[in-house]
């Protein structure tokens, strides 16, 4: 793809990134960080592409390590954020919800 097209994507994404998290209450800082952390686990797409085109054993092994690391980031990121938000909801209203989330 042309460099200028990629630059356009980049600049627009920077502004959206700035815009979507402005004015977030401080209680949501940690879940938001955790959610953003899960999103960059999408590097798994890149790791899969690299592993799928590896043609020597060393490249394949390094690529599969990247696949493993990226999977842990992506899957673990979304699951732990969900648990965090269960806790968040429980803290405000019913204590029972917090206990339930431990199950």
């Amino acid at each position, binding site marked *: 793809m042309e460099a200028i097209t990629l630059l356009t994507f980049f600049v627009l994404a920077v502004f959206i990134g700035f815009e979507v998290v402005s004015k977030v209450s401080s209680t949501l*800082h940690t879940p938001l960080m955790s959610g953003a952390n899960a999103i960059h686990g999408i590097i798994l797409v890149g790791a899969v592409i690299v592993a799928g085109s590896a043609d020597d054993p060393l490249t394949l092994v390094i690529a599969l390590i990247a696949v493993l690391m990226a999977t842990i980031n992506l899957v673990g990121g979304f699951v*732990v954020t969900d648990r965090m938000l269960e806790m968040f909801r429980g803290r405000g209203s019913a204590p029972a919800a917090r206990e339930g989330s431990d199950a």
Partner: protein
Amino acid sequence: MAVLTPEWTAFLYLVAAVCFILALKGLGSPRTARRGNLIGALGAVIAMVVVFLSTELDNLALILGVIAVGTIIAVPASRMVKMTQMPQLVALFNGVGGGAAALVALLELEHSVSFGAYLAVAFTVLVGSIAFSGSVITFLKLQELMPTRPIVFIGHAAVIVVLAVVGLAAAAIIVLPEAWLAGVGLGGLKWSAAVAGLGVGSVLGVLLVLPVGGADVPIVISLLNAGTGLAVAASGLVLNNTLLLVAGTLVGASGSILTREMAKAMGRSVTGILFGAFRGASSAG
């Protein structure tokens, strides 16, 4: 299997990117936070289905097997971790993401041709490995497997400066044209320079996080998180993959704002947290 046309692939990547934007937006408000996270997960599932359906992949069974192993590791770890230990788990997840980005860039080095791609490889290798090792140190501090107080040794700042210079030199070798490098007797060193960058970045990550006090560690995790986002964005440039570029940039930008906001909420400055210990000022520990 390449059953999806490039147009469909690009369209579905756009859908996934919109999911990520909606996820970050949703996470900003208590009422929509949980749904936002689920929309983000949906975007990730769409992206993963698309990559398998749009690319001719060798080693398919191995890749799927490793993804299964990663899932089997990640889900119980996230489900069983104590509430109070969640921040360090997020730090670990961030670290492995940064490491994955650095490795992807390292392997794409040999397929890179343009100046922009080389620059992106150099950036990802350095920032990704800093995020990896820095996150491991934040994990060890929060888990109290090492002292949470700021750790500064004699000549600490000088070592950081020297390593930063070495890292930039490695980056220069990656970026400069091969013909020019051969002219000054540095031909054929790009791969070695990238591996050296990985090593230098890993040591730098450790040295940068050691001086941070325990109470400031969550802010540093957020900073490293933004760094990983940018590394993923740069690896998107290397792979010519718009989804990685957009998703990584979103995290890099929102993570930077979030880091500043977190520091502000605690009445601290980001530079003070990172470098305060060197000036003799206290870092809240």
